[in-house]
């Protein structure tokens, strides 16, 4: 296990294996997302309270989920990079940030488009929405900090600290709908006991979330491969491996 792990962490091996995995992730994700689109837009019945507006859930909830999942991925990778001085982990953290920021943006915009017809407002400064907006600024702060430090190792370290401190916002976002009074509805999927949603509505949602996750792995691996190349200053393998 450990030798396998060390081998994977070596840049040429990682580069090659990631290159082989990426198309598999990409096509699996595409299949899942297309199936989930059909299930969510066509097969699922309209909600008895929200009508067809509820269908925004199939892009809003997965985007919001990814905004948190990617942040945790980034923070864990940053912590591994700090503690074990693993360059590959820093490369993962740096690669995750822009993708996470884009999903946070999507969650906010789709949320506004859902809020307007349901709540009568695009935006309220309540706990859920505000903490999600802070998440977007955390991503931006992380990326700006990295961009502002020229020395790569110092950029890795400083931005890792920011990513780790910022992780405190993740449980705040998750529990905000329980801790505070908010317009935002409580979680649909992870409610205690049975999810409060019928199967024909739930299955496309779960497929979409799974599809987004696998999609993220494909995008992340592509970005990390680039980061790995940038970090390998004098490696002979680049010549043979780079084109693949």
């Amino acid at each position, binding site marked *: 296990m450990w030798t396998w792990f060390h081998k994977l962490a070596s840049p040429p091996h990682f580069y090659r294996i990631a290159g082989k995995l990426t198309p598999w992730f*990409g096509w699996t994700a595409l299949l899942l*997302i297309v199936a989930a689109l059909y299930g969510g*837009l*066509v097969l699922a019945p*309209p909600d008895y309270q929200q*009508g*067809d*507006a509820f*269908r*925004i859930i199939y*892009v*809003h909830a997965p*985007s919001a989920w990814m905004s948190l999942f990617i942040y945790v991925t980034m923070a864990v990778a940053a912590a591994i990079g700090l503690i074990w001085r693993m360059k590959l982990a820093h490369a993962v953290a740096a690669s995750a940030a*822009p*993708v996470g920021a*884009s*999903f946070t*943006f*999507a969650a906010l*915009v*789709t949320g506004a*488009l*859902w809020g*307007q*017809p349901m709540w009568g407002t695009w935006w309220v400064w309540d706990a859920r929405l505000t903490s999600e907006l802070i998440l977007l600024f955390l991503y931006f702060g992380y990326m700006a900090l990295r961009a502002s430090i020229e020395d790569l190792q110092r950029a890795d370290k400083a931005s890792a600290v920011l990513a780790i401190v910022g992780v405190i916002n993740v449980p705040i976002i998750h529990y905000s709908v329980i801790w505070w009074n908010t317009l935002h509805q409580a979680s649909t999927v992870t409610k205690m006991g049975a999810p409060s949603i019928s199967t024909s509505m739930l299955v496309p949602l779960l497929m979409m979330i799974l599809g987004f996750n696998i*999609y993220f792995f*494909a*995008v*992340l691996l*592509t*970005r990390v*491969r*680039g*980061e790995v*190349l*940038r970090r*390998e*200053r*004098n490696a*002979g393998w*680049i*010549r043979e491996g*780079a*084109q693949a």
Partner: protein
Amino acid sequence: MSFAEFLAMGGYGQFVWPAYAVTLIVLIGNVFLARASHRRAVEEALRRAARQEAGS
């Protein structure tokens, strides 16, 4: 259900479709940006390798 009814989304089409469009743009955009970033790294690495070879 007709296609026009599908597009109308029970009167919520003006909210549902932009939400899907924004998400789709984010999904497609990420793929393009990631691939461009990788391609740039490959080009830089090859240039660097060529320079090192010429220098040594």
